[in-house]
């Protein structure tokens, strides 16, 4: 047992494994006895994978390349989940989870479930004593998500309900520590959210909206329903690239040598070695230009920019 909410050592039939080829090429695979997996590196038998350890590096039968059998995690799942909808990415998932103070034992409500990207992270964080009630009104999405939760060993922690939460509310009262709304009109679900939040302690809500007009309407609704401490954020993660850049001494240029700064490190060193020929005493050493590691942020950030609106609901005691 266990998988997305708990590590295990050995791969068994039925497990989801993340097949890693390169950083940009990963996909999930359910272990099915007898099945064969083909990809650009060759073919791989599930039966060879079953019984091996998570993390194993596996050579293809044709010997064309390697794959790695990674243990699934909610973060990896977010990278490989089949998109049925827009999904939440890790920066938002992380920020929301800690703002809402999710940890083992918390009760959470989420709608809509969408592709279940966030649901996996929530379940992992609140397991095993907490619970996620997630609601989706699109029937196929609800069924697909429910099936995934089962396959991923999460059905004890997640109750998936096919339901229109704007028309019918959550059907929960005085239960949740936190509510998360990722809906086109979150303001229409604020009343139901208030009802579902625990009355004996502080409740927290987060609404996710791609445009600022939605944020405004949500803030108005939150205010009207007695939520306080309304805060709005935008959260992203920028990836940084590192490479080693040649920084030759100016004497190199004074000596008349041309350095190709655009060439890759190994090509440049090869070329210099060739040019230096055998006349040079220690070809290897002198072929190397002095280098420094430099980094710069990559331009593109994964996922679209959206706004996170947070608020709290503090029960005011009757006095």
């Amino acid at each position, binding site marked *: 047992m266990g998988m997305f909410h708990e590590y295990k050592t050995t791969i068994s039939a039925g497990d989801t494994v993340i097949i890693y080829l390169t950083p940009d090429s990963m996909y999930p695979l359910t272990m099915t006895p007898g099945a064969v997996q083909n990809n650009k590196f060759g073919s791989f038998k599930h039966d060879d994978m079953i019984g091996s350890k998570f993390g194993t590096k596996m050579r293809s039968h044709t010997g064309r390349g390697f794959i*790695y059998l990674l243990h699934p995690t909610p973060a990896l799942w977010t990278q490989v989940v089949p998109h049925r909808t827009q999904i939440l990415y890790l920066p938002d998932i992380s*920020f929301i989870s800690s*703002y809402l103070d999710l940890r083992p034992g918390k009760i959470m409500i989420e709608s809509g479930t969408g592709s279940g990207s966030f649901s996996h992270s929530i379940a992992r964080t609140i397991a095993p004593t907490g619970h996620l009630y997630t609601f989706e009104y699109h029937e196929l999405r609800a069924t697909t998500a429910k099936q995934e939760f089962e396959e991923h060993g999460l059905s004890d922690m997640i109750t998936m309900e096919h339901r229109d939460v704007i028309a019918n509310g959550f059907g929960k009262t005085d239960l949740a520590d936190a509510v998360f709304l990722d809906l086109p009109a979150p303001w229409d679900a604020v009343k139901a959210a208030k009802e579902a939040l625990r009355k004996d302690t502080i409740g927290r809500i987060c609404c996710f909206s791609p445009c600022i007009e939605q944020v405004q309407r949500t*803030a108005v609704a939150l205010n009207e329903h007695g939520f306080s401490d309304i805060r709005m954020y935008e*959260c992203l993660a920028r990836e940084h690239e590192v490479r080693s850049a040649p920084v030759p001494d100016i004497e190199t240029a004074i000596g008349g040598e041309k350095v190709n700064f655009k060439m890759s490190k190994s090509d440049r060193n090869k070329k210099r070695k060739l040019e230096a020929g055998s006349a040079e005493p220690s070809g290897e050493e002198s072929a190397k230009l002095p280098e420094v590691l430099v*980094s710069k942020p990559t331009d593109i950030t994964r996922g679209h920019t959206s706004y996170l609106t947070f608020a709290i609901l503090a029960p005011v005691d009757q006095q």
Partner: protein
Amino acid sequence: MPMEVDQPQTTTPRISAGDFVLIRMPSTNTKIVCMKPGTTISLGKFGSFKADNLIGQTFGATFEIQKDGKIIAQAPTAFDNADDTEANNKEINDDPTSQKMTFEQIEELKLKSIAGDVSAKEIIDSLTENNASFEKKTEYAKSKYIRRKERKFMKAFTPIEPTVFNLCGYFFEVNPGKIRGIRPDTLSQLLSLANVYSKARVLTVDDGQGLIAGSLLSRTTSEGMVFAMHDGDVSNYDVVRYMKLSPEDKERLRTLPWHRLDHEMTPFTEVLPENPTEKDISGYERRKRGHARLASNLETLRAGEFDALVISTNYNVVSVIKRLLPYVGGSRMVVVYSQSEETLIEAFDWMRHSPEFLNVQMTESWLREYQASCSAPSHVLPEDA
């Protein structure tokens, strides 16, 4: 069939005796105080109240302080940090000539207010009554004016739960050096990337006084563990004590000094002198317990197979990873935080070229807070800019 779930045990719904609480004042400054029964908590010009009166209340409500240190919960206000930088500014800026009360009269009112003889509302009422331009203001400007005055005169406060997120935000504001400058959004990413969960056994190096070690504790349960390496002889995880963790939770934080990493245990051979004094006995017992603890911690570390390695260190990152990687299980996450990219670049490059790691990434968290008001939909401005 949906399962019925018991109320969670980890959430204590109310403020209890001995808790640390973040107290946000009308100025939006925050301080951290301990709810020691019988004590009086002073908030300077915002008054003082008896800790006993806050014990048993909920976090997040706003309380007004009464004359005798009693507190009364207020109706919630949506925007505690509503800004004054908007277009309507010209209307809400005070024209000093429109105030009919003298400086001395206002100062006297303030003193009375601190003594508890006059309420904030009374001060604000006299200010608005004596302000010639107040009635000419728009409703929006009036409410802004009142809110600004409230922030100045209200003797009120909001107790904020010392969640990991809130504590991180607090220390980032008041003493970032203590926590190695980690922001709440960055800490959040670190926790998700490390894939911490209830049963995880996490190995960590936290030279930021335990904020990270404590947050790892809060995401694990009695079936999990946090194992922290520290320099010197004794660890300094000061931040952990502000977190709402049970004594059992704190027990799960196991520590080992770096200088014991390669230590070989020898049996405990000390013997008590004849006719030992009480002091002899207690010293002997303490050393014996220390010896047993060290043995057990070394055994735990050397059993390895940790589920994550989380690092925030003043030492060379590559050297730290090299020493600890043997204790980490396969297909697990290694996460390193640093405030400066320079200290990570070398580690990134090394990990990228090492066959031990896959999918090495270096990311920077980016966060912007916006301000919005419910009454003026066009006014959404970035917080910084």
